[in-house]
């Protein structure tokens, strides 16, 4: 009700009694506090507290049953000197992160450039390109283990038509990660949609001017398209790296199904099948924390993951900031 005064031109708000303004200010603060309360609690309970607790746990021995006991930097020393699978899991995570990021961004760019130029049936193509991205990761992983089945899967059948002996895919340590990368390409619809939206925002006059100057398609792509959508490409790359660092579901499910076992049932001897080639860092962390109950040690691993993903998060937040994400439209 007092807001009326503020809106009236001619300095009417100056005339408002200070007491009322104060009351209004307090009411406003209470409104803001009430509206943001869920997040203030959520942030404290499910992010700030666990982050601090993880750091504390990382300096302890903790098995969930007994109280944590102080262990100094023992967990970190073991992590970098004695864990037999740490570097395997880091190597696999880096491999998958790089392959998925490069593969999905390049493929997404090609698919979006093709889509933006298609006139007739554009809607159908867009739907088909995006649809697989919605498939539940567990279902998609199962489907690809079937499709890439070395003996009877359709993909090796297809290769056989050309006289090619297909690889063992998920059953070969050298091919298991590339198989996961292929699965990643199939579900790259989200990146395609983001690139497509960015391409549609590039002013058409730029291309007309360039083609008048005799620039060919590739030159136009390099000197107009790429610079125009480079913020979106950066966003996609950094976002994809952060997602890659969390890579878990597809590797767990594909490894378990290809080996004929199940991770859920607790038999974790086939984790990272075949031969630890699909064991990612988050999987090894999960195994240590929730199957071996080395929770102090797993917390030290979590801190390492926190620092690495934190670096990329800072990069992304800075990009968003410079793109004016905190800005408001009037």
């Amino acid at each position, binding site marked *: 009700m007092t807001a009326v005064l503020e809106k009236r031109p001619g300095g009417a708000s100056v005339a408002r009694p200070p007491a009322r303004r104060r009351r209004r200010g307090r009411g406003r603060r209470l409104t803001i506090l009430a*509206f943001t309360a869920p997040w203030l609690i959520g942030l404290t309970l499910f992010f700030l507290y666990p982050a601090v607790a993880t750091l504390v746990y990382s300096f302890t021995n903790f098995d969930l049953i007994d109280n944590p006991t102080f262990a100094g930097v023992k967990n970190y020393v073991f992590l970098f000197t004695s864990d037999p699978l740490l570097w395997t899991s880091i190597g696999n995570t880096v491999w998958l992160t790089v392959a998925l990021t490069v593969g999905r961004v390049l493929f997404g760019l090609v698919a979006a450039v093709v889509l933006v130029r298609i006139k007739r049936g554009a809607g159908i193509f867009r739907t088909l390109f995006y649809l697989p991205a919605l498939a*539940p990761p*567990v279902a998609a992983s199962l489907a690809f283990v079937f499709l890439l089945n070395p003996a009877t899967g359709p993909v090796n059948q297809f290769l056989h038509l050309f006289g090619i002996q297909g690889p063992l895919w998920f059953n070969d340590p050298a091919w298991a990660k590339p198989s996961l990368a292929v699965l990643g390409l199939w579900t790259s619809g989200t990146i395609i949609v983001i690139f497509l*939206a960015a391409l549609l925002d590039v002013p058409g006059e730029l291309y007309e001017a360039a083609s008048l100057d005799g620039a060919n398609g590739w030159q136009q792509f390099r000197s107009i398209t790429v610079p125009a959508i480079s913020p979106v490409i950066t966003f996609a790359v950094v976002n994809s790296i952060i997602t890659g660092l969390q890579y878990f579901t597809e590797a767990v499910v594909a490894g378990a199904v290809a080996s004929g076992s199940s991770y859920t049932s607790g038999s974790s001897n086939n984790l990272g099948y075949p031969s630890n080639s699909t064991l990612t860092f988050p999987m090894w962390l999960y195994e240590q924390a929730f199957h071996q109950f080395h929770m102090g040690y797993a917390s030290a691993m979590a801190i390492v993951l926190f620092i690495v993903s934190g670096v990329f998060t800072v990069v992304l937040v800075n990009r968003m900031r410079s793109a004016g994400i905190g800005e408001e439209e009037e």
Partner: protein
Amino acid sequence: MAITTVRPAVPVRRRPPRDVAWNRFLAWLGLHAVAVAIAIAFIAPLVFILLTAVMTDQQALTPDLWPRVWRWDNYVAVFRAAPLLTYLGNSLLYAVLSTGLMLLSSVPVAYAMSRLRWRGRDLLFYSVIVAMLLPPQVIAIPIYVLWAHLHLTGTLWPLILPNLFGDAFSIFLMRQFLITIPQSYSDSARVDGASELQILLRVIVPMGKPGIAAAALFSFLNAWNDYFGPLLYTGENQANWTLSVALASFHSVHQVQWNLTMAATVLVMLPVIVLFFFAQKQFIEGIKFSGVKG
């Protein structure tokens, strides 16, 4: 084409020279060939899943791609092979309650972060982005310990209840959408003496429906597709498995039955695909707002 339309000084040609037309046709052909190839590659997996799902046990083990006998009753058999209805109920419980609680808690937060100005707003918004990007494995251990103390591990509540306290991605997505509504709508409601709660419910929620709907869709989809959360909390308690967890172990239980495994896969994918065809626009808008406009 630019030559004919932009420069009248050049003699206007009704038909471009033959080599230009030919090159243009080749470009058109190449473009559509690539598009069709990608489309086939994207759809083929779904077709093979559907075909295998209706094969007999024996045929699903052969390299055959086309069913000799169409065993539609595989879709009935799959419910006998595993208590899928229980898992379906659990998935729905998780997805529906999460989405409902998320809307209740996150819409006001997104409103305060987009429609009101106050000190610390941007800082709190950055906390939303950081929380959204943080790998769930980083903070999973203390949260698990917390729920273990409350004796709620083994159930889906540790995944549902946090939605009472705002979901970072949903807040982010809705904030990005709500901030595009011109401030003048709120201002004129304020002039009419409306409280912020009234403005939120009567002005912003109706106008922000597309953004809120997109957030609700993604919330539902994320819960439906989630594997890490249900595996962590219900892995040891089969009665509370969701479809994702059940599907991941289906094949090991029914060792060689690819046909039933694929039928189960179809059943888990189906609701998502149906949802997409009904709400395609919201999905696409949601991605654009979370990606590009950010």
